[in-house]
């Protein structure tokens, strides 16, 4: 630890105070608030918390101090899951279905996003899944599209960050990581190949839109080529 000797008592007291406060908190505590309570700067508080977290880990405690959803909180150590799970059994929320997860991924990366936009990407109606996600607190309405129709726009919640153990949305792995590689694109293109039947095949490359836009490309403005087309 880097404190000057003079600093030591202050730091020791600050650590204790953080431990004491986090023990009675029932949601992640903003470092700003901690800083205010113990009268240290926010960066200092963050530094202390990081040191404390590392300390608990080194001491092989059964709990961890994590930064999640913008604040700090105590949690059981993941390795203690077998014991803790037997204990908190009823508190366990059911896992999300694959459909719900994919919808959640779209909301997470495209927020704010409307139901219709999500349905266009998923290719199926998402009303039911969206309701499930909202009921379980993963997503919420965060506004309305200023355009005509004023579609409700959805985004992820604080609870979403907590459930995924993320400090902020910036911690989501970049979507670019998931864009299919050239091999996949090629395989798909091959699978959907159209053999030109026009007399002048040379003109085709111009008229056919170039490579697919990829996942960030324009969403089909007409919505899903669904029953309503």
């Amino acid at each position, binding site marked *: 630890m880097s404190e000057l000797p003079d600093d030591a008592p202050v730091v020791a007291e600050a650590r204790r105070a953080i431990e004491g406060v986090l*023990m*009675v908190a*029932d949601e992640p505590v903003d470092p700003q608030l901690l800083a205010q309570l113990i009268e240290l700067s926010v960066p200092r508080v963050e530094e202390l918390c990081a040191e404390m977290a590392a300390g608990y880990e080194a001491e092989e405690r059964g709990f*961890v101090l*994590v930064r*999640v959803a913008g604040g700090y*909180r*105590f*949690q059981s*150590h*993941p390795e203690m*899951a077998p014991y*803790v799970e037997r204990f*908190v059994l009823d508190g366990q929320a059911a896992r*999300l*279905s694959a*459909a719900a*997860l*994919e919808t*959640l*991924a779209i909301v997470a990366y495209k927020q704010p996003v409307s139901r219709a936009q999500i349905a266009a*990407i*998923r*290719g*199926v*109606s*998402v*009303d*039911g*899944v969206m*309701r*499930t996600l909202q*009921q379980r607190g993963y997503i919420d309405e965060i506004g309305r599209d200023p355009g005509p129709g004023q579609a409700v726009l959805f985004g992820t919640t604080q609870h979403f960050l*907590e*459930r*995924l*153990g993320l400090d902020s949305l910036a911690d989501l*792995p970049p*979507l670019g990581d*998931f*864009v*299919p590689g050239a091999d*996949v694109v090629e395989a*798909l293109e*091959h*699978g*959907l*190949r*159209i053999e030109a*039947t026009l007399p002048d095949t040379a003109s085709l490359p111009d*008229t*056919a839109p170039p490579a*697919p836009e*990829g*996942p960030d*490309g324009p969403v089909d403005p007409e919505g899903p*080529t*669904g*029953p*309503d087309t």
Partner: protein
Amino acid sequence: MTVAVQTEVFEGPFDLLLHLILREQVDLYEVSLSAIVDAYLVELERMGDLGLDLDMATEFLLIAATLVELKARRLLPDESGIDLDEELALWEERDLLLSRLLECKTFKDAAQVLSELEADAGRSHPRTAGLEDRFADLAPDLLEGVTPQQLRDAFVRATAPKPVPRVEMDHVAPIRLSVADAVEELVDELPRVGRIGFRALTSSLVERLEVVVRFLAVLELFKQGLVDLDQPTTFGEIEIVWLGDEAHDHADLAAIDVYDG
């Protein structure tokens, strides 16, 4: 919840198509149409077991229809018969389908990672014990600013019925045609003709949706064993053969109502 119709493998039509192309390495032009239709039928059947979601079923069929269309063009290289605009439209359709497949794949992979994040985070449980009794009196009054009216509203909110999971069909609503109606038409028509090609059966239909509904109706009859489907030649026309007797009892078709929201 119907949308949670999750087959273990496929979450929707894009999924199945992705699977067919990527995992099975299928070249849609080298595989017989029946193989693809079979795959879709199997999926539909599985969905049926779990409570059919018309939405998804329709989407499956739409994609199937698009594929059939793509294939049909390929198989009928009658240059004189193909108009330039149609050809270009086909390309556009293909590229749209392609980009949607890519987008679908992207979020599928992203979802996988989110799921892993959640599973990891789920092994750690937060402390939620909250305030100890000795501090209870200290906290400001929690009812500060709460009016009796708000309390009443909260009661109304709490006792409002929770949404009941069910098949969402309202958005398919403006359809003037239902699968049940189409089935009835077919049951009326098929015994008279005995055997007919799907193309002929739908030649009078203008809208794609009508064709899809017709197709769905044919599949329903197939499922009920009232028709046989045959594709005499690879890539050929689908032939529908009536198997039922002349005056089929319509009551037996009650089951189709499932489709009909």
